[in-house]
């Protein structure tokens, strides 16, 4: 039963199993284990980025396709929800319409880009996605009447997902039982289901064909698989799931803007998370996204603590200044690639 749930793709390493279970428990009970606006916000981000990174790994790690348009698809979902909610008014119907429209549009766009460029060579696809993603980012910031331009869009979500909505006499185990809690579980459960869905896809006959194409597209074609069709299908699927992650992100933030969804920085973050966690394993996305988002949110605090503890010494406090967190993130990244070239999951599985 459990094995079917994870599609037969067990962690295959006791340490990995323990880490994954710890992450699952922490995320599932985040509002109770770590009450506090910031920690719950971090947990929600981790959930969403796990899905986003996993959907990118579906493309890169399983399909061997390099794309720079993943944030564009992420953004399409986010803007879909934002536009639907601000045009149709707050409501679950607008959330649904926005998500579905965003995902559909993302899949359609991926289909067009894929059919245009995946026939030729994988590198050509990477270039085209870069161009299209930049064009869309410019378009979004220019069409300010529709998208709010650089300021983005703030919008209202259904009351049941807001802090003013109370249930269960307003408290469960000392935690405020309000719409915010419901919203967290909407995000968590959606992400959990999307992740299990992707785990199924990569372990399905289709997923095996993708791996075969990554390994040897020449032979895959020779045993009868139309490589282009499979690559395009994987691109569409990955785009649609990224858009759904974007929709959840927009719902969580009640805001969407170019910086939160479309920027090249996020694209690079996604790449880093895939590489740190381990390409070609869905669990790599879990570990990569968790570590990275935690580092993004808490490395500054850790550093300032470390800086204080060595404040009596020369030079070191400067190096451990909280403002240097990006430097340390870089160092951590280099170390992880150096010591775990196959990613953390690849290393734990002994490859």
């Amino acid at each position, binding site marked *: 039963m459990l094995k079917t749930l994870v599609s*037969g793709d067990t962690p295959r390493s006791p340490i990995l199993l323990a880490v994954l279970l710890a992450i699952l428990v922490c995320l599932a009970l985040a509002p109770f284990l770590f009450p506090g606006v910031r920690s719950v916000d971090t947990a929600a981000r981790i959930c969403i980025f796990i899905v986003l990174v996993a959907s990118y790994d579906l493309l890169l790690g399983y399909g061997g396709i390099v794309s720079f348009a993943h944030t564009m698809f992420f953004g399409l979902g986010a803007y879909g929800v934002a536009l639907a909610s601000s045009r149709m008014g707050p409501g679950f119907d607008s959330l649904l319409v926005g998500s579905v429209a965003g995902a559909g549009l993302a899949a359609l766009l991926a289909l067009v880009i894929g059919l245009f460029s995946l026939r030729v060579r994988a590198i050509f696809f990477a270039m085209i996605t870069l161009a299209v993603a930049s064009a869309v980012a410019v378009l979004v910031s220019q069409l300010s009447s529709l998208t709010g331009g650089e300021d983005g869009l703030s919008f209202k979500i259904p009351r049941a997902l807001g802090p003013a909505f109370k249930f269960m006499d307003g408290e469960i185990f000392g935690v405020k039982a309000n719409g915010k809690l419901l919203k967290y579980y909407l995000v968590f459960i959606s992400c959990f289901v999307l992740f299990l869905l992707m785990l199924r896809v990569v372990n399905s006959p289709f997923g095996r064909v993708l791996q075969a194409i990554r390994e040897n597209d020449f032979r895959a074609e020779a045993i009868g698989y139309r490589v282009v069709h*499979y690559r395009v299908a994987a691109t569409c699927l990955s785009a649609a799931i990224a858009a759904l992650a974007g929709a959840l992100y927009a719902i969580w933030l009640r805001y969407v803007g170019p910086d939160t969804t479309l920027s090249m920085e996020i694209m690079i973050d996604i790449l880093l998370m895939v590489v740190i966690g381990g390409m070609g394993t869905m669990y790599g996305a879990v570990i990569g996204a968790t570590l990275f988002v935690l580092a993004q949110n808490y490395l500054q605090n850790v550093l300032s603590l470390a800086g204080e503890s060595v404040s009596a010494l020369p030079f070191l406090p400067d190096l451990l200044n909280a403002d240097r967190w990006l430097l340390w993130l870089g160092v951590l990244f280099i170390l992880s690639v150096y010591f775990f070239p196959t990613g953390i999951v690849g290393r734990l599985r002994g490859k």
Partner: protein
Amino acid sequence: MPHPILETTDLTVRFGGHVAVDHITCNFNAGELTAIVGPNGAGKTTYFNLISGQIPVSEGRVKLNGTDITRMSVAQRTHRGIGRAFQLTNLFPNLSVLENIRLVVQSKAGRGFNILSMADSHAELTGPAYEILERIRMTDQADQVVSELSHGDQRKLEVALLIALDPLVYMFDEPTAGMSVDEAPVVLDLIAELKTRKDRAILLVEHKMDVIRTLADRIIVLHNGALAADGDPAEVMASDVVQEAYMGRDLEEALANV
């Protein structure tokens, strides 16, 4: 004469000014094993590439069971019945032995777009894949990753993928090259077994004289991209054309030195 399964008519390919395959017109029949011989660079592998579609044809036609397949993609040809094992091993190195074969069975069954079921739960795909493993005596290595196999085992698997595909036209490109003396007979027995089925055409590029002698019903000789001789093995080996193609040397002697 039986009905030809595969026909190539004036099949030609040019790379710049160089004519690599030069107007080859040849038919291949069911139940017949044709050995394709010729010195290095004669165009044997290129001729294979034109038939299986890896290289676009410059001129001429390829017909399978009377249907023109000259403009079809590699995958389309595979589904219609052209199957190929490669001279240089060409597998999925980081997947298991079983998975390599299962992928072929799955392709034949047209199940590649099955996206929501578990690959391992398809007994109708895994079962036939195991049968193939039994036939090549590799069941013990089913779960091994291909890149960890010995060279000989990789060659065997290369042939096994083609057997799993079970096409109308089997194309083997030096199937036993690099195999040990114990390993080669397994593969040769499989090819001999295919011959007895009488409904498949087998094309075999081969340098080993003993293999040709035991298996071939017919030999065609390529020289500088053109068809230099075609016929009964004993006659072809004795003919002047062959002597000339191999620059005065005996075919057997010439091939022994390759």
